[in-house]
């Protein structure tokens, strides 16, 4: 299990240009597989355009207590990029002036940002009702100062979305690190205890499943059934929904694909599973991603590839609906990850 980010070890794939080159190489360069833009053009869906902003997804920083093998953020304890209050305030300004109804907080481990609680309190006071926090669960157990996060989440009605790669220990720890499974189970029990995921409760707890390897997720409903049965039988744990998310070929997952000799097969599998009906629901159509330093991206994946929005307004302080709505989304072959099978977004399948 890696303990350092690609950036920290000076890996060449820490350079976004190297990742973008790879996504143009091999079967795409030789014309064996179509480029994403040509594929969506076949059904008249090119160019992909952003519609009305509904969700502001804020990356609070790349710092994380874990170093998961598949992480598309290349997050870890060694990453120091952290959003400051000024940028958070600018985000609140945008929420106030647009019809965006949801703040979706991600990272890294967003809870590690020292202003995390301040931000939720300020947003709450400003009238935001719909919060999503993408929590890796183990953070709740990582340090005493995080033990009361379940109560804090409950107080603000935060919708908790947590990663859980499998309902067995072996698979979970292999993807996310030793001890992650047990710590996650403990954290889920704490969330259940304050009402999260419990029948009849308004506190929503969803789990995110992504495959621990070079294969696509199976049927979301069937996986949800298996997870519910196993987590309840083994640990008495309850949750609301399971989102099956496809791993996109970027950052550490891309490194894994290349190093294990799976890159080509994986790209073939993604293109084979291409579903034109999923294109309309890809998340860049209603979401804007803000990086720790305030820049704007069509999605968190584009953020990690350094692909800023194709608009004159490229920073949250310059946010302007007239410039951003209807913008052409910046795409490359990683986008096939959003349109495979039933489609994939931060809220699970889309088609």
């Amino acid at each position, binding site marked *: 299990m890696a303990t350092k980010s690609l950036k920290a070890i000076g890996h060449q794939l820490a350079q976004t240009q190297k990742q973008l080159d790879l996504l143009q190489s091999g079967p795409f360069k030789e014309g064996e597989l179509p480029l994403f833009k040509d594929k969506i053009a076949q059904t008249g869906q090119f160019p992909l355009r952003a519609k009305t902003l509904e969700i502001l997804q804020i990356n609070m920083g790349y710092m994380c207590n874990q170093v998961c093998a598949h992480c598309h953020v290349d997050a870890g304890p060694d990453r120091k990029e952290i959003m400051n209050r000024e940028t958070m305030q600018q985000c609140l300004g945008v929420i106030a002036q647009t019809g965006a109804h949801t703040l979706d907080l991600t990272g890294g481990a967003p809870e590690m940002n020292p202003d995390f609680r301040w931000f939720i309190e300020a947003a709450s006071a400003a009238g935001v009702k719909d919060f999503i926090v993408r929590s890796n669960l183990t953070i709740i157990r990582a340090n005493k100062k995080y033990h009361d996060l379940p109560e804090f989440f409950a107080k603000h009605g935060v919708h908790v979305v947590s990663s859980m790669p499998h309902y067995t220990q072996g698979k979970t720890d292999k993807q996310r690190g030793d001890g992650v499974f047990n710590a996650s189970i403990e954290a889920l029990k704490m969330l259940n205890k304050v009402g999260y995921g419990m029948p009849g409760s308004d506190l929503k707890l969803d789990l995110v499943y992504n495959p621990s*390897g070079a*294969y696509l997720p*199976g049927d979301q409903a069937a996986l949800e059934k*298996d997870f519910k049965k196993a987590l309840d039988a083994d640990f008495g744990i309850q949750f609301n929904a399971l989102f099956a998310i496809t791993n996109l070929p970027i950052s550490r997952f891309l490194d894994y694909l290349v190093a294990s000799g799976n890159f080509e097969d994986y790209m073939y599998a993604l293109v084979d599973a291409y579903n034109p009906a999923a294109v309309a629901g890809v998340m860049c159509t209603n979401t804007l991603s803000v990086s720790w330093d305030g820049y704007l991206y069509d999605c968190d994946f584009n953020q990690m590839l350094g692909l800023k929005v194709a608009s004159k307004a490229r920073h949250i302080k310059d946010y302007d609906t007239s410039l951003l709505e209807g913008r052409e989304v910046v795409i490359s072959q990683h986008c096939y990850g959003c349109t495979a099978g039933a489609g994939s977004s931060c809220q699970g399948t889309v088609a």
Partner: protein
Amino acid sequence: MDNNYYDPADLRKFGKISEWAPELGEKFFDYYNSVFKEGALSAREKSLIALAVAHVVKCPYCIDAYTKDGLQKGITKEEMMEAVHAGAAIESGATLVHGVQMMNKYNKLSM
């Protein structure tokens, strides 16, 4: 032409068999896809049966395909190995039960 009988890249060309006999190919894939849908048996159970049969017929393409399918469906490696044993047990049982035929013949031919 390659020098090997089996090439992993051929698996993704499976669909091409329809090119030389479109109607039969289409019928086959239609049938194939229907078989593996959720039914009285779950898609998960059928995937494990397919994996066991893949080993019994020793088809490297099917083994690749149904190992991956099992992973996609969240099937554990312990479940997969037990399925392979179920196939192997039937296969060796099928061999051994012919031992009765051998015994019958032996007895008939012996004084």
